[in-house]
């Protein structure tokens, strides 16, 4: 065998052996307990590294989820599907109904509100906002220059001819970029399954509001009184809804004299309890107006005079067909 073979085998083999030894020792010595779940979470993420979650990329989001810094459903792109998978990895029951969507708390577009001044300058809401709350008569109103449209990474927001952003619920991922972009703070993230929204953010007294906006909250408190579950409160002349309590009955929307409250569901016409009722008393306990009476294990009855058609009893009833609801057209 030639000397060149010997030398090269010795040098290359030797270098290989020494390097591997070094690496092996280093791997032992500097061994970091890496949570295996981080990799697993990373695998189920979309891998687009888009940053919509607010982290540097999918892997840092995965890390944050494992640490508990980020929510399971924090990936707006992956949506529910990914959230479920992550929940599986973490062994946590994924909280359903967690998905949120952006909601605009103003319906005072160009038609509904008065314009009191003419703006010349950089055409962004931020710039307009810096001069005394905008050009509209209502200083809480949407400025209409579309900063949210610009900020939305998913093209879910489009400015309407009326100067208000229209949020496409299909495209909205609840990432919250528009919430941050809006200088008026009139966009919020609300649970997707809640159907009542008070589309006004004005804290002006009712007198002022009724002068400057056709659809603003005048602070009449009718909704507060109507709400069977006390989900609406008056805060400084403005009705504010507590989405945790809201039961989607839509009564507030019906009562609202200015049409400020929007309701996207169906209104209940009448609720009756059929003889399928097994008398479990759940509905009676749930009724906010004590309109249901009945003894245990006996068919219950609804006092139609008291009933406000909120449908809460229907929601809690565990027996199919025991409560029947007819909806309004």
């Amino acid at each position: 065998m030639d000397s060149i073979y010997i030398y090269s085998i010795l040098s290359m083999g030797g270098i290989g052996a020494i390097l591997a030894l070094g690496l092996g020792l280093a791997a032992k010595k500097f061994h970091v307990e890496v949570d295996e779940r981080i990799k697993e979470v990373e695998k189920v993420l979309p891998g687009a590294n888009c940053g919509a979650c607010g982290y540097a990329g999918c892997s840092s989001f995965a890390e944050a989820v494992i640490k508990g810094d980020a929510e399971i459903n924090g990936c707006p792109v992956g949506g529910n599907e990914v959230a479920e998978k992550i929940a599986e990895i973490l062994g946590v029951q994924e909280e359903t109904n967690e998905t949120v969507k952006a909601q605009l708390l103003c319906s005072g577009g160009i038609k509904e509100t008065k314009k009191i001044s003419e703006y010349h300058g950089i055409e962004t809401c931020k710039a307009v906002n810096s001069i005394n709350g905008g050009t509209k008569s209502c200083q809480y109103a949407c400025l209409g220059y579309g900063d949210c449209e610009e900020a939305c990474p998913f093209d879910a927001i489009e400015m309407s001819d009326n100067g208000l952003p229209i949020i496409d619920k299909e495209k909205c991922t609840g990432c919250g970029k528009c919430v941050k972009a809006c200088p008026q703070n009139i966009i919020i993230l609300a649970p997707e399954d809640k159907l009542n929204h008070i589309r006004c953010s004005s804290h002006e007294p009712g007198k002022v509001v009724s002068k400057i906006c056709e659809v603003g909250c005048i602070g009449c408190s009718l909704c507060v009184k109507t709400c069977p579950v006390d989900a609406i409160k008056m805060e400084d002349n403005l009705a504010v809804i507590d989405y945790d309590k809201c039961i989607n009955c839509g009564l507030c929307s019906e009562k609202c004299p200015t049409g400020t409250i929007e309701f996207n569901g169906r209104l209940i016409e009448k609720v009756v309890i059929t003889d399928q009722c097994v008398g479990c008393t759940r509905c009676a306990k749930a009724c906010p107006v004590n309109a249901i009476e009945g003894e245990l294990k006996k068919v219950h009855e609804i006092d139609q005079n008291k009933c406000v058609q909120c449908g809460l009893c229907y929601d809690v009833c565990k027996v199919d067909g025991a409560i029947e609801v007819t909806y309004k057209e």
Partner: protein
Amino acid sequence: MNNKQLIVTSNPHIKDSTSVEDIMWTVVFALVPAVLAATYFFGLRALLVIAVSIIGAVITEYIFLKIRKKEIVIDDGSAVLTGLLLALTLPPSIPLWTAFLGSVVAIGLGKQVFGGLGYNPFNPALVGRAFLTASYPVLMTTWVLDGTSTATPLSYISNGELIEIWDLFIGNIGGSLGETSALALLLGAAYLIYKGYINWRIPTGMISSVIVISFLAGANPITHIFAGGLIIGAFYMATDMVTSPVTKKARWVFGIGAGLLVAIIRLWGGYPEGVMYSILLMNTTVPLLDRYLKPKTLGVAE
């Protein structure tokens, strides 16, 4: 909605009605003496080179705007100015097609690919010139005066030969079309400073640092000011509104930095002339300078 409404604007408040058009055409107008001087010293061919360069710039601007489906804003004069400035940095003997190509590159690669007027990080005319210098080094370094090939003042200096300061000042010397006559350039520059269209800090910083360094290095500062492209560079190119800083401090740093680079390249570098590269190099620092040399905001908590 006919009742008059209060007009409100957010800052920055525009104080006067000067438009991009006004500025561009005024600068073009300010360069007329330089064009005349070039024609006087180099003959009608100088005019031809300038015309071709401007036509190239305007055509390219038109085509790019058309492709990008933008409003055709050729009459704002910015493409004309780029073409003119480029032409003034070219040697008089340059073939016409080279001048044309240079202005195509200046507008295409220097300006439109970045998004058009206002978005380009580099001075378009200098991008065009840098492209030509790299592409056609021989054509770009052949200087002709009175029909004979001559060296430029800066090459004379590096050869240790003497030249008349007066010739340098009025421009009776070999060199690029517009850079030779300091007198003509200064006339236009004075007008622009008077109108407030160019800022005095950048040229002052640039020229004074060239003076200081060349004096310290034992060279004749006066020749260094009037030779080469320092005057046209300092007054017309380094001050380009798009590619120079906006804050006062940053303008000083920009000017002095460019002057330092000019002196270093001229005295110790491989090229006899460094104005082009020094301005292009300083262009890259503009966003950084503007960011870190902001004036203090009053009334804001630290």
